[in-house]
């Protein structure tokens, strides 16, 4: 008997600090040839940091070591080095060019790998097509090689991306003579309907049968349990468990991910003592407002909302309530703010604002603005702010019309209004005439919030409002939204994948899964871990 073969890939003692924050703490991980390892953990547990160290994006702390087929490879990896040592990655976004054909996407890797010298070598498309068909055939995937990739259903796109990665590994094995190869799949199933996931698994089993080691990263515990041989659980940057997939119950897995001893969720949020008056009285006579109404402070109800992903969703938000919506990627939670604002079309649904009843399918951003519904989108650079305009121009965008009277545009009033908002929302530096792109992320976000809050919204829709924002600004944003809710009775819908944030700011949290509400948490139950557990548990129940 010879010694057991070394694992295809082995990470030893990997740590990674971001500032004072330890993202990975002495992590060991190994995957054998022909083995599928599932990597699970909640948001921020270190999964993606680990993948990024493997792909050469992040530099680990000294002391970490990487072995491939028993041979040590010095860390950190250079960008692009991963593919030279037999690692191949398929990310959530698949990295396919939608305008190119299936064949072109399939052979793209070869083009790049061939290097500069081969850049002028003629391409024999007939030969390529024959080889491409053979490759797809070998993996049991049936696709039209001449079809535009963007026209394929999502599952076929995912399969194409996996076949391409597997084929790159195949070539690596023949070229280098090594036996090992590692395929890393980072959340490949989130956008797929459940009936398609099985097709993907067949493909992964084929890849595995060829001898590749597979690292499968997912939130979806059902998927992990059915495809993985072994499950590795990360929590707070540490490996807390490593168990054969068949031997663990799902509830036990959830407990491992969340941590059985529920940590205290609510961190000290003591600085709410000074609420901010957020509605600034318009300096001129309010003219253009179409909705007189009794002002903010109305009960909001969403009824029977459906779109591609949401299925007959109904919920209510009380006046002055902050309602959190939690859901894993693909649950439909991230669509909600855009649907309620009319930015994306819905299939059906009604929105009740106080006594008014609005058809959600007939909503448009213009209409929503008139109804004083506010949307703070996640992508502030693309959707939220006009980056090359100044701070004041961005802040007053919604109230400009009120300051145009008798043919005169009262710019001074607007600048004054913006200046006041800059003070109240603590935007720094307070340079109202500076171009907004020159401000830091946190201050840009405060400006975006100010833009909507000075218009006095009745319903405030927030999507990832603290994304890419530093800690100080994050506290400020919590404070501003809370005071809008308490002082103006604005109803707030808060959607984020940062469950700790929901636990901290929300009065109540609903949990979505597969487009349905499956749980509601409030009061004492609200904690990061409870929300995470609820979100994970649901996948199991729905499936």
């Amino acid at each position, binding site marked *: 008997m010879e010694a057991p073969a070394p694992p295809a890939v082995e990470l030893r003692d990997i740590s990674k600090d971001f500032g004072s924050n330890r993202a990975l703490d002495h992590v060991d991980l190994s995957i054998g040839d022909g083995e599928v390892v599932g990597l699970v953990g909640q948001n921020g547990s270190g999964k993606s940091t680990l993948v990024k160290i493997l792909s050469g994006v992040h530099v680990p702390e000294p002391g970490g070591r990487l072995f491939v087929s028993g041979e040590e490879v010095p860390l950190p990896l250079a960008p692009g080095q991963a593919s030279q040592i037999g690692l191949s990655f398929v990310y959530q976004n698949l990295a396919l060019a939608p305008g190119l054909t299936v064949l072109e996407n399939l052979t793209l890797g070869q083009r790049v790998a061939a290097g500069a010298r081969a850049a002028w070598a003629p391409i024999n498309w007939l030969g390529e097509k024959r080889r491409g068909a053979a490759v797809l055939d070998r993996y049991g995937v049936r696709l039209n090689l001449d079809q535009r990739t963007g026209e394929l259903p999502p599952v076929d796109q995912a399969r194409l991306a996996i076949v391409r990665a597997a084929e790159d590994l195949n070539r690596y094995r023949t070229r280098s003579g090594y036996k090992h190869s590692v395929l890393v799949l980072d959340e490949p199933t989130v956008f797929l309907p459940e009936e398609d996931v099985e097709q993907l698994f067949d493909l992964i089993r084929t890849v595995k049968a060829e001898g590749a080691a597979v690292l499968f990263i997912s939130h979806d515990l059902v998927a992990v349990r059915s495809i993985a041989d072994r499950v590795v659980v990360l929590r707070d940057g540490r490996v807390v468990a490593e168990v054969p997939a068949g031997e663990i119950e799902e509830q036990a897995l959830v407990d491992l991910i969340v941590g059985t001893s529920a940590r205290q969720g609510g961190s000290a949020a003591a600085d709410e003592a000074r609420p901010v008056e957020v509605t600034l009285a318009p300096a001129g006579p309010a003219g253009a407002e179409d909705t007189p109404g009794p002002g903010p402070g109305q009960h909001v109800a969403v009824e029977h909302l459906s779109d591609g992903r949401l299925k007959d969703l109904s919920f209510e938000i009380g006046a002055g309530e902050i309602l959190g919506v939690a859901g894993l990627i693909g649950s439909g939670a991230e669509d909600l703010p855009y649907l309620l604002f009319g930015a994306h079309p819905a299939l059906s649904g009604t929105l009740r604002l106080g006594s008014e009843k609005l058809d959600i399918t007939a909503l448009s951003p213009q209409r929503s603005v008139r109804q004083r519904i506010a949307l703070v989108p996640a992508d502030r650079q693309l959707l939220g702010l006009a980056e090359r305009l100044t701070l004041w121009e961005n802040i007053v965008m919604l109230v*400009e019309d009120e300051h145009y009277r008798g043919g005169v*545009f009262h710019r001074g009033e607007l600048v004054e209004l913006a200046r006041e908002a800059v003070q109240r929302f603590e935007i720094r530096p307070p340079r109202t005439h500076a171009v907004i792109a020159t401000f830091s992320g946190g201050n840009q976000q405060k400006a975006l919030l100010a833009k909507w809050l000075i218009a006095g919204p009745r319903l405030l829709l927030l999507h990832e409002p603290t994304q890419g924002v530093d800690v100080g600004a994050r506290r400020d944003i919590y404070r501003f939204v809370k005071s809008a809710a308490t002082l103006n009775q604005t109803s707030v819908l808060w959607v984020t994948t940062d469950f700790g944030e929901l636990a901290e700011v929300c009065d109540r949290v609903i949990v979505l899964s597969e487009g349905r509400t499956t749980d509601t948490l409030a009061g004492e139950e609200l904690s990061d871990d409870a929300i995470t557990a609820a979100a994970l548990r649901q996948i199991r129940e729905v499936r």
Partner: protein
Amino acid sequence: MSASPGAPAPVEAGGRDERPAERDRPSAIRRLGLERYAIVIVLVAMIVAFGVDIPSTFLSIGNLSNILGSQAVLFILVMAVLLPTIMGDFVDLSLGSSLGLSAMVLAVLNVQHGTNVLLACLAGIGAAVIVGLFNVFFVVYFDNDPFIVTLGTMTIVQGIIYIVSGNNSVGIVSTSLSNWVFSNEFLSIPLEFYYGLAIFLVVWYVLSFTPVGQKALVIGQSREVARLTGVRVNRQRSWAFIIGAAIAGIAGIAYAATNGTVDPTAGSALILPAYAAVFLGATAIKPGRINALGALVAVYFLATGTAGLELLGAQSYIQQIFYGAALVVAITIPKVNRDRIFKRRRTA
């Protein structure tokens, strides 16, 4: 992804480090505040230089009248070009052929069919508006690239102009129109200059002193932000195409009245200089923004330069070289950052 300012800006009030991560380090010129008036300063310098060199011809009333009057058609066209451009529909190539179509319809109706001048003028402008509506339909409604669509429109309209005119120059347009546009003068300057000025004042007012103009700016900067702020993006873009076309039609009338005869290729020679002026104007007054006042300065900057050079004995084609060079130099100067140049030298 350029520079993710994760760290909060330091906040010591009055401290020198008050500004946040400098993503866009301003050049020396911008820091001195010279940029916005650079063209104005060069214009004044040019006037002084030509004035010293050739005082008898350059500093004459005749030359002033020539500079202001001769560019009136171009100036009106520039105002037309401004509208779609400011809303981010970066090029409406067909505005030149709208000008040509309007002039040709006027000439053909008035000269060959004896239609009343006023009616013929309205018909000309109407024809231009139809071209604008065509663009709205294909650019805004079907959400196509304006460059490609208006390239097509331009070609179609040019073809129509050849059909309408029978591929001949048509003249001479009613002298009463010429009188009211070109021959009559106020303060020794042809009336068409004042027509252009009037159109400029309206465009300037709307773009700079009304919420509509402010919204146009937002649309031009980011269409999605404007949409999610509740701005009626497509409606405003449509009006920009239509009113732009109408103003181009008016430019066509001025062209016909100024030249007397209308050549089938009338508009095509004017459209690129008009864009040169608009983009040159975007470097002045409000740098980085397409703006009406900047465009005004740019047109007369170019006109003064070419007039001076011609008086010095340069051939008329010097105009093209001067236009092109001024545009390239003007957009490049703000980017010339001393640090960058030095760094590059060091590494080279």
